[in-house]
C-alpha cells in the first residue's frame, strides 16, 4: 500500500505532537500504592474472583519475590521501584458495565478521541464496506465495554473481559490460563500473574470463522499506574480469528509500567492472526516520561496444521521489551512474525521473536524491520530453535535495520539453534541508511525532507504493513510518519 494523499493529509494533520497525549478526568478507584500479598488479595477481591484464582495469584507472587529482573536486553533505564506503583486503578462505574448506557460518558468521549467508534458504527470512517470490528476497551486496568457481544454470541464466539470469563467460563479459563506462558516464565510475566487486573478473553468454537475483527484498545490513564492486562485467545479446531490490539497512554512526566501477558492457543487447523499497533507515550524528546513496556506474548500452535501470525507496529513506549513468540508443537503448524519497530529521540526497543519448532513439517517466517532515529536504540533479538524430532522444518528470517542519523543505534542479535539435519534455516540481516539518491529523487518531485523520509520508510516497511488489516494499515502508516518527525533536517 503506498502512501496516498489521504495518508499524507493525516500525517500533516497529526503532526506536531503525540496525538493521544491528553488525560481524562474520571474518578478512579485505586488500590493503595505498592505491592504485597494484601494488594494481590485486594485485586482478586475487587474482581470477585474464585478461590483457585486467588491461590494462583499468590503462588505467582511468591515466585516473583524470588525472581530477579532480567538485565540481558540492550536497554538502559533507572531501576523500577515496584513499591511506587498503583497496581489497580479502575474507572468508577456503577454496577458492572453491561451495556454502553452505563458507561461514564466522559469515558466514551475518551474513546472517541482515540478514534475508536465504540458505539454503534463499527465501520471506521472513510473505509467503505469495512468489516465490523468488535471492541473490548481496557481503561487503566479494567475492561469497560465490549461491543457486539450479542452478534458474536450467535455464532458461539466468546469475547469478553477476562474478569467476566472467570465467572462465565471458568472451565476454559482454568484449563488454558498459564499454559502457554507458565507462571514462572519470566520476571514480568510472573508479576503479571500476581497482579493482572483485566484483559480480554476470546474463545472461537470449532469450525467457526469469526465474522468480524476483534479488537482491544488499551489505555493507561491514571497517574503512577501500571497496566497488567492479560489476554487469552483460544481458537478451537478449524476456527479462525483476527485480533487487533491498540495501545495509547496520555503524556506524563513519570514513567509508567506496562507488563502484559498474551497467550494464544491454536488447536488443529485453527488460525490466529494477532495484530498490534503499539503507540504508548514514548516520552518527550529528552527522554522524560513514557511507558515502560515489558510484554510477554506467546502463541502455542498445539494442533496439526495450525497457524499463528503476529504482526506488530511498534512506535511508542520509552522502553520496549517484547518478543511475541510461537511454539510450533503441532505437525505442519506455521508461525509468522512481522514487525516494524520505530524508535526516535531517546526511545529504546529490544524486540523480536522466538520460533520453537517441535512438530514435524513446521514452518516459520520472520520479517523484522527496525528503524532508529534521534538518540534511540533499536535491537532485534530473535531465536529460531529446531528440536531433534522436528523433521523438515523451514525457517526464513530477514531482519533489516535502517538508521536515520549518526546518533542512533541498531543491533541485531539472532540465535539459531538446530538439532535436526532436515531443517532448512536461512537468516539474512542488513543495516543501512536512506540513500541520498532516494532522498534526492523524492525531493526533486516536490516533497519536503520529512515527507520523503516518511515515504521511503513506508516503502521499507511495506512487507510488514501489508499484513495488517486495512483499518490498521492506514493508521500505522500515519504513525510511522509521526514517530519519525524531527529526525531529519
Amino acid at each position, binding site marked *: 500500500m503506498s502512501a496516498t494523499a489521504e495518508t499524507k493529509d493525516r500525517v500533516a494533520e497529526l503532526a506536531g505532537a503525540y496525538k493521544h497525549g491528553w488525560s481524562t478526568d474520571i474518578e478512579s478507584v485505586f488500590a493503595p500504592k505498592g505491592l504485597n500479598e494484601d494488594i494481590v488479595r485486594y485485586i482478586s477481591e475487587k474482581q470477585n474472583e474464585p478461590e483457585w484464582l486467588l491461590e494462583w495469584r499468590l503462588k505467582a507472587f511468591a515466585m516473583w519475590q524470588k525472581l530477579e529482573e532480567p538485565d*540481558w536486553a*540492550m536497554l538502559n533505564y533507572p531501576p523500577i521501584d515496584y513499591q511506587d506503583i498503583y497496581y489497580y486503578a479502575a474507572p468508577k462505574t456503577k454496577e458492572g458495565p453491561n451495556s454502553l448506557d452505563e458507561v461514564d460518558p466522559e469515558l466514551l468521549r475518551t474513546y472517541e478521541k482515540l478514534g475508536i467508534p465504540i458505539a454503534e458504527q463499527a465501520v471506521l470512517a472513510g473505509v467503505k464496506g469495512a468489516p465490523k470490528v468488535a471492541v473490548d476497551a481496557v481503561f487503566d486496568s479494567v475492561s469497560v465495554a465490549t461491543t457486539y457481544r450479542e452478534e458474536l454470541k450467535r455464532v458461539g464466539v466468546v469475547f469478553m473481559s477476562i474478569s467476566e470469563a472467570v465467572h462465565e467460563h471458568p472451565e476454559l479459563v482454568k484449563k488454558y490460563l498459564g499454559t502457554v506462558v507458565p507462571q514462572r516464565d519470566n520476571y514480568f510475566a510472573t508479576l503479571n500473574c500476581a497482579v493482572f487486573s483485566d484483559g480480554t478473553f476470546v474463545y472461537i468454537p470449532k469450525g467457526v470463522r469469526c465474522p468480524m475483527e476483534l479488537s482491544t484498545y488499551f489505555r493507561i490513564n491514571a497517574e503512577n499506574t501500571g497496566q497488567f492486562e492479560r489476554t487469552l485467545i483460544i481458537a478451537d479446531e478449524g476456527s479462525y480469528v483476527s485480533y487487533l490490539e491498540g495501545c495509547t497512554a496520555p503524556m506524563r512526566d513519570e514513567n509508567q509500567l506496562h507488563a502484559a501477558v498474551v497467550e494464544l492457543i491454536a488447536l488443529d487447523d485453527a488460525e490466529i492472526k494477532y495484530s498490534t499497533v503499539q503507540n504508548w507515550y514514548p516520552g518527550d524528546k529528552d527522554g522524560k516520561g513514557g511507558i515502560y513496556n515489558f510484554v510477554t506474548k506467546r502463541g502455542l500452535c498445539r494442533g496439526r496444521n495450525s497457524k499463528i501470525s503476529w504482526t506488530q507496529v511498534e512506535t511508542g513506549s520509552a522502553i520496549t521489551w517484547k518478543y511475541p513468540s510461537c511454539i510450533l508443537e503441532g505437525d505442519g503448524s506455521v508461525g509468522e512474525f512481522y514487525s516494524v519497530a520505530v524508535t526516535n529521540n531517546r526511545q529504546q526497543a529490544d524486540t523480536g521473536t522466538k520460533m520453537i519448532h517441535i512438530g514435524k513439517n513446521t514452518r516459520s517466517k520472520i520479517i523484522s524491520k527496525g528503524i532508529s532515529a534521534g538518540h534511540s536504540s533499536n535491537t532485534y533479538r530473535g531465536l529460531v530453535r*529446531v528440536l*531433534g524430532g522436528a523433521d523438515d522444518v523451514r525457517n526464513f528470517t530477514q531482519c533489516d*535495520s535502517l*538508521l*536515520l*542519523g*549518526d*546518533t*542512533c*543505534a*541498531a*543491533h*541485531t*542479535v*539472532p*540465535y*539459531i*539453534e*538446530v*538439532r*535436526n*539435519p*532436515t*531443517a*532448512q*534455516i*536461512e*537468516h*539474512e*540481516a*542488513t*543495516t*543501512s*541508511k536512506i540513500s541520498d539518491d532516494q532522498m534526492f529523487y523524492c525531493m526533486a518531485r516536490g516533497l519536503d525532507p520529512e515527507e520523503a523520509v516518511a515515504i521511503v520508510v513506508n516503502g521499507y516497511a511495506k512487507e510488514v504493513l501489508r499484513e495488517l488489516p486495512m483499518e490498521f494499515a492506514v493508521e500505522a502508516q500515519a504513525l510511522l510518519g509521526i514517530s519519525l518527525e524531527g529526525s531529519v533536517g
Partner: protein
Amino acid sequence: MMTQTPSHIADFKRAYETAGPAFPGGKQLGGMRDQAMERFLSLGLPVRKAENWRYFDLTPLRDQAYSPALTLPTATLAMIDEAAVPGLEAPRLVFVNGRFSRTLSDMDRLPDTITCESLHQRLLDGDDTINRLGLDLADGDAFDQLNTAMLAEGLVIDVPDGVKVDQPLELVYLTSKADGLASHLRLVIRMGKGAELRLAETIIGDDSRAFTNLITQITLADDARLICTRRQLEGSQTVHVSRNHVTLGDALYELAQISTGGKSARHELLATFTSEGGHVEYKNVQLAGEGQIHDTLTLFDHAVPQCTSMQTYRGVLDKGSKASFQGKVLVRQDAQKTDARQKADSLILDRSAEANAKPELEIYADDVQCAHGATVGELSQDQLFYLNSRGLSPREAKAVLVEAFIAELCESVEPEPVRNAFLADARTWLDRHPVKAAEEVR
C-alpha cells in the same frame, strides 16, 4: 562468609603453587602472576549462563586436574615432521607438551631481520623490555587470568618497520602422552610499520586428556600485513581454548583456520581497529564428529571509520557433535563507512548433531554497510541422487558434497602447501565421517 572452593579451582590453584616457583622471571612478574591467580580464583571458570559460553562445555576441565609440564618433554624429529605442513619450506618453531623445544626448532634458519625468541628464554634473561609487552590481561576473563598466572612459555616475535619476510614461519604444537597436562602458552607478535609476515600453525595431539590454553597477542602498525593459517588437529580428549587478541592500524590481518580436533575446542578472535583503513579477514572451517563440541567466537570492534572486515564460517557436523558460531560486529559511533560482513553456514550430517549460530550486529553509526547471513541445513537430496546415479556410493557422494562445501574456503588459502594440508586434513576427516548410516552398511 566462606564459600566452598570448587575442587577443580582448587586443582588449578595447587598446580600454580607447585609449578609457580619454577617459573622464570623477576619479582615484578611474580606479582603479576599472583594477582592474575587471585582474579582467576574469584572469577572461576565461566558457567553456561554466561552469554559467551552458552554453547560450550567445560565439564572436562571440572572433572580432572591439569598442570603444566615441569620437565622438558622429548619428542622425535620424525613426530614433528609428520605433524608439520608437508612440503612447506619454512623455519620451524616447535612446542612439545606446552614447552618450547629449542632442539627441534630451526633457530638458526630464522631470518635475521626479525627477532624471535621463546618467552621462557626472554624471561630467563631477565629482559626488562618484557614489561612493555602488555602481558598482563587484567580486564580479561578466567582463561586470560589463568594464562597470565601460568605465564612461562611462548614466543615473542618482532618484525621491525619495513621488514618483509618472504619465507613463512611454521609453528608446530605437539601434545603427546600427556594426561593431565596443561599448556598455557602466550604468543606475542608485533608487526612494525609496513612489516609483512606469514605464519603457518599446526596444533596436533594424541588422545591424551590434556588442556591447551593458547593466547596470542598481535599488534599491527600501519601498512603491516600478517597472514596466518592454523590447523587445529588436537586429540579427541583434549580441551582446546585459544584466543587471538588483535589490534591493528591501517593494516591487514588474515586468519584461515581448519579445526577437526579436541573434545571441547574453542577459538576466539577479538579484533580492534585503531586507525582507518584496517581490514580483517577470518575464515574458519569446523569439522566436528562424535562427542565433539566446537565453538567459534568473534568480536570485531570497529572503533574507527573506514575499516572493513569479513568473517566466513563453515561448519560440518557429524553424529553426536555440536558446533557453534557466535560472531559479533561492533560499529562504534564514529566508525562511519564501515563495511563488515559475516557469513555462517552449517551443514548437519546426522540428526544427533546440533548447530548453533548467533551472528550479532551492534551498530552506532549510520553510514555503514553491515550484513550477516546464516544458514543451517543438510545435504541436498537432489545432489546426492545425482551423484548416486553417476555411480558414486552414498558415502562417496556425501564426501564429495561436503568437500565442495568447505573447499570454497580452503581453496583461497596460501601458500600452496598449507592449502593442500587443509584439504588433506579435511579428507582425513571425511575418511572417518560421516559415520556410516545403517542403510549404507550392506
